[in-house]
């Protein structure tokens, strides 16, 4: 018995700045340990998957166990390319922010496999309800980097007309729902979209993402409840990257149970997966998608990963966590791990990798050159202030017309 009289427990991470990282408590189970069950499994049967960790790539870089999605080398190289592009894009846009070309940026470094693995496993017309850290979805779907950059730069070609904070992308064509600044809201909306698809007997499914921190919002609960009640064809992803700005995952309730276990209590089969293992992410996503498309309803997936970078360009993580934590994350880096796998299985070489990196960074550089030609937040062409009054309503009512005139347009 840990205590003999009530006292207020405030969760705290093991170490703070000044101390060194310590992941000694974390003993990730070996790859291949958990089996891939039939898709019509019950929530109760899924319990070991929700408490455990599905892993495909072992320490040697081999794909092992029944969860191995057995992707052909081309697809794997495609995944690697998408992850590298995402990383190069992040680095370049972060720099653009530092150069004053925009106000804000958010990287997903270390979490690339979460988005890229899922995008590879879903159909191109499945509907995505992401957070701000799944730019990899758009990139994997081949959405133009230039378009994304125009949004980040809030320039004259920004389809969102400079209205949204950088990285709050939206693309109906890419099946990528408008990102909200209000955490959590997309999670339950995705369930509504999936219910609509089921109502229309559409074979498309929905997938949503939420940070482990934001699982505390009511929207998470509503998503699980409605998805369970109406058996919605939706994949509900929790990205547990250990941090929510400065709060470690214990503040979101991670000390007592995995985030995947939340789903079991609703009767939703749930799985925790090594989010830095693209093969594992792909496999569980494909399993969940198969379930949804077969009319078996929702799946909750917790992606166990690590936010290597700062929360955003406004943040400095060395103020609240050991500076050396990111590089010691026991589950490694998703790019290195996939590269290792391709190398071990003889489908990749150092030279190929170098060429890939050069090519990718050239693509990103060229895209940014083009995007900047359409302006940046601070320079060059920009949207007209008159557009500020559009799209509040489909048709502009008199009071907005009058306000636009007041502004001089």
């Amino acid at each position, binding site marked *: 018995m840990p205590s003999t009289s009530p006292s207020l427990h405030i969760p705290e991470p093991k170490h703070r700045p000044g101390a060194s990282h310590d992941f000694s408590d974390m003993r990730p189970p070996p790859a291949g340990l958990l089996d891939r069950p039939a898709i019509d499994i019950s929530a109760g049967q899924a319990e070991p998957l929700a408490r455990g960790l599905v892993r495909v790539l072992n320490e040697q870089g081999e794909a092992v166990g029944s969860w191995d999605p057995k992707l052909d080398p081309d697809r794997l190289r495609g995944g690697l390319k998408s992850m590298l592009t995402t990383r190069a894009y992040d680095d370049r846009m972060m720099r653009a922010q530092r150069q004053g070309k925009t106000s804000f940026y958010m990287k997903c470094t270390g979490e690339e496999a979460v988005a890229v693995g899922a995008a590879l496993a879903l159909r191109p017309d499945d509907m995505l309800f992401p957070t701000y850290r799944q730019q990899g979805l758009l990139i994997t779907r081949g959405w133009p980097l230039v378009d994304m950059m125009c949004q980040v730069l809030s320039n004259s070609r920004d389809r*969102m007309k400079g209205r949204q904070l950088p990285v709050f992308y939206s693309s*109906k064509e890419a099946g990528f729902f408008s990102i909200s600044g209000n955490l959590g*809201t997309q999670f339950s909306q995705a369930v509504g*979209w999936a219910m609509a698809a089921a*109502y229309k007997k559409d074979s498309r499914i929905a997938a949503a993402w939420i940070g482990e921190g934001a699982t505390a919002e009511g929207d998470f609960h509503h998503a699980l409840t*409605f998805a369970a009640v109406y058996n919605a064809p939706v994949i509900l992803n929790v990205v547990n990257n250990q941090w929510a700005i400065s709060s470690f995952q214990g503040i979101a309730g991670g000390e007592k149970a995995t985030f995947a276990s939340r789903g079991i209590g609703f009767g939703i089969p749930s799985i925790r997966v090594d989010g830095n293992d693209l093969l594992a992410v792909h496999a569980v996503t494909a399993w969940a998608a198969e379930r949804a498309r077969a009319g078996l309803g929702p799946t909750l997936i917790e992606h166990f990963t690590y936010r290597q970078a700062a929360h955003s360009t406004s943040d400095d993580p060395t103020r609240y966590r050991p500076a050396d934590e990111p590089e010691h994350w026991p589950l490694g880096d998703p790019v290195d791990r996939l590269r290792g796998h391709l190398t071990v299985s003889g489908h990749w070489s150092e030279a190929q990798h170098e060429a890939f990196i050069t090519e990718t960074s050239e693509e990103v550089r060229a895209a940014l050159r083009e995007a900047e030609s359409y302006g940046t937040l601070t320079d060059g062409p920009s949207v007209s202030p008159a557009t500020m009054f559009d799209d509040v309503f*489909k048709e502009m009512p008199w009071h907005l017309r009058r306000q636009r005139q007041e502004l001089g347009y």
Partner: protein
Amino acid sequence: MPSMTMIQALNSAMDVLLTKDPDIVVFGQDVGYFGGVFRCTDGLQKKHGVSRVFDTPIAEAGILATAVGMGAYGLRPIAEIQFADYIYPATDQLISEAARLRYRSGGEFTAPIVVRAPTGGGIFGGQTHSQSPEALFAHVCGLKTVIPSNPYDAKGLLIAAVEDDDPVIFFEPKRLYNGPFDGFHDRPVKPWSQHAASEVPEGYYSIPLGQAAIAREGSAVTVIAYGTMVHVALASAEEEGIDAEVIDLRTILPLDIDTIVASVKKTGRCVVVHEATRTGGFGGELIALVQEHCFYHLEAPIERVTGWDTPYPHALEWDYFPGPKRVGAALRRVLEA
């Protein structure tokens, strides 16, 4: 033409819509088999099927999120919130999501949803079954807010709201569900059947959002009202024998400013009436606009008759309700000023 109560008119509107458009679905707490605690959806599930008219969990934010997701898919959901007093848990999905989706996505995603909710007091519902929170939503850009005052308008406006491509909050004055209540709570209850606006076509028609109606023409003073208060204002004018022009806003956002301005310029005097609490209520906005547009025509300060700035009390309901006596007194004050 059949005579309908407001409940029947709303039911008829949804029936017409469900019949016309397979992309319309209706959901909310108890709206399915049971037909809603006020019976507005009575019979609709049986007629249109369980997957088109169905019950939801008790989670207003979940209901709204479902509506937003369905709207983004391309459906036109009609969501019922059981009482306007219970809309608060859904505020974020309404304000941050439904209202802003078109804007923030550059017009790519929209939320063509309607949120129906019974509003107002007069049924001894106490503070959690009597509120009129319309001012909160009128302050949110991207939402339209409708409040009908009779069966004919209720049906026509609900059809227009559902066909509108923007999110609409549709507040139904619950004290008007079964009869045209004029605030004289101690007089015999009147049924809708004795009121002209209970003649409601069975089929399809719509009333454009954003257009007020002149409920009574007059030249001495303009009364701006909506919902239950339209009937109270009319009764006050009759009781006091005052030649008031009573405007029924019907839609509070977008507002029909032209009708208001024309009337106040004519009468030179204005009283604003609403059941919601006074401070920060929509009356403030109306007064601001009236004085802005009609300053040089005004012959007296604009008065407000409203609910008091307290929760709606159970036993003291009729001391709280801004009834014809209080409206009448304001009319007299404004005329004498």
